[in-house]
């Protein structure tokens, strides 16, 4: 099987700092992949490069067999690379409905889905349990609901690759359980790349784990293998209480 996403020698430096340093990475279709690493390891920079929010200094990104290194972010989204923000960035002044309508109408315009905007929006809101709050301004939703809305927007893009940047941050335990269910369901139709700090969530969800440290991939493997990897323990697990 061909990987959905590969990067070759992907690098990005800010000033003198090499935030991402020659990363070779491959992601198989249908996978749930977690990316972990200490703060400043380059995780967010790495997914930003993949999503096109920032441009690489060197290296190459291939998505579904096509070189997307020079594509602008919006074009990658249209190909099916969706990104949900680490810091909640829903449109606070728009209703939850409008927030989701934006990605829905995008897929309609691109011909990646069919039907009315309304149907698509409500379907995404149902899946995330926000249907009853469709007409509330997003800024007035609780924090947990805003995170869910963020996911709903990602879902509504009908992604083939959904990048979730610390989706459980700030969620209550009960919300986290629901969230895990949701991601499992998403994974039936999309590949998921997950940046996460919450180890129990990772252990429950991830098929494989990639560990970043100092801009490089330190290790990669099944949750079990990673847990037992001494290097990882020293670099990451060991340093976080």
């Amino acid at each position, binding site marked *: 099987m061909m990987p959905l996403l590969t990067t070759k020698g992907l690098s990005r430096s800010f000033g003198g700092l090499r935030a991402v340093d020659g990363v070779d990475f491959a992601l198989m279709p249908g996978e749930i992949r977690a990316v972990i690493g200490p703060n400043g390891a380059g995780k967010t920079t790495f997914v930003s490069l993949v999503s096109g929010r920032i441009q690489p200094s060197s290296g190459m990104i291939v998505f579904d067999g096509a070189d997307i290194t020079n594509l602008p972010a919006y074009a990658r989204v249209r190909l099916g690379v969706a990104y949900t923000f680490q810091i909640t960035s829903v449109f606070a002044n728009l209703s939850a409905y*409008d927030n989701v309508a934006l990605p829905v109408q995008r897929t309609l315009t691109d011909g990646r889905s069919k039907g009315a905007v309304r149907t698509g929006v409500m379907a995404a809101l149902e899946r995330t349990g926000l249907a009853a709050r469709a007409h509330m301004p997003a800024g007035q939703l609780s924090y947990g609901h805003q995170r869910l809305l963020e996911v709903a927007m990602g879902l509504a893009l009908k992604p083939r690759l959904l990048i979730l940047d610390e989706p459980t941050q700030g969620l209550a335990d009960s919300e986290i359980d629901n969230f895990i269910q949701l991601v499992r369901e998403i994974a039936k139709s999309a590949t998921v790349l997950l940046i996460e700090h919450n180890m129990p969530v990772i252990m429950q969800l991830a098929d494989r784990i990639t560990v970043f440290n100092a801009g490089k991939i330190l290790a990669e493997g099944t949750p079990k293998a990673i847990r037992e990897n001494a290097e990882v323990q020293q670099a990451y697990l060991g340093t976080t209480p």
Partner: protein
Amino acid sequence: MTEASPAKPYALHLGVIALLFALSFVLPDYHHGLLARIMVLAVFAMGYNMLFGYVGLLSLGHAMFFSAGLYGAGLTVYHLGWNVPAAFAAGLACGALLALVIGLLALRTTGVAFMIVTMMFAQVFYLVILYFASWTGGDQGLVVQQAARVLVLGSASLDLTNPTVRYMSALALFSIVLLITLAIVRSRYGRVLVAIRENEERTKMLGYDTFSNKLIAVVVSGTICAASGAAYALLFGYVGSSFASVQYSILPLLWVLLGGAATTLGPLIGTLFMYYVIDITSGFTSAYLLIVGIALILLVLFFPKGILGSIRQRWLGWLP
């Protein structure tokens, strides 16, 4: 903007148009004439609102789009003897083309830089009008003769200098632009524009080419303003450089902020308000600018979102 029943907003807008139509028959002559002018300038404000209200781009150079229409229509009549529809189309074309070029350049910037860049391009445009005074009449401007301002439709001919014809022409333009604005605002495109205003970065990550969307908005906005300018030249017969000065870039901003940014009817309300405040106070005192200034400050203190914006916020949430 949720896809609620579209009936209410459309009914409201058609009602406003019907009201303006009815006013034509009851208004005293002076206010009849003034309202015709206000409707034409409200179109200018609506064009400005398209960019400022919905996309959140604050331009201080929209006088150039207005005067592109003004001169596009006025000069083709004056020098080339074109008829009214052709001249109007020339005005629109000039505005659209200018907006495209300015958009391509100015949209490389954002925020205050966008504001200053548009202001400077407008200043260049203004100086160009002065520089080519032998064509444009420079600061004195040109008069489009009455005889040239007749709209020939088949066998019928409409004299645009006739007050009723002028009022109805202004109303027709106003109505068309109002309904177009309403349709855009309620469309998928309108939703994207608002998303760009709220958070451009996020909008990009939802798959939208925000640059192209903004560029289209600049062109639409510029074309609407040009329509207003072209109509002004043809309906009121004067083409002059004062319309390209920075004052006429600030005015639409003021009208829109007064009426309520990002409200479809706000531009009309704001223009109407400003015109009548000046008209009324200039009758009481020669120091009327003082009163206008105080009125502006009071308004912004107590209606920070503009007249219609505040009404929408407090009472009528469904207002588009």
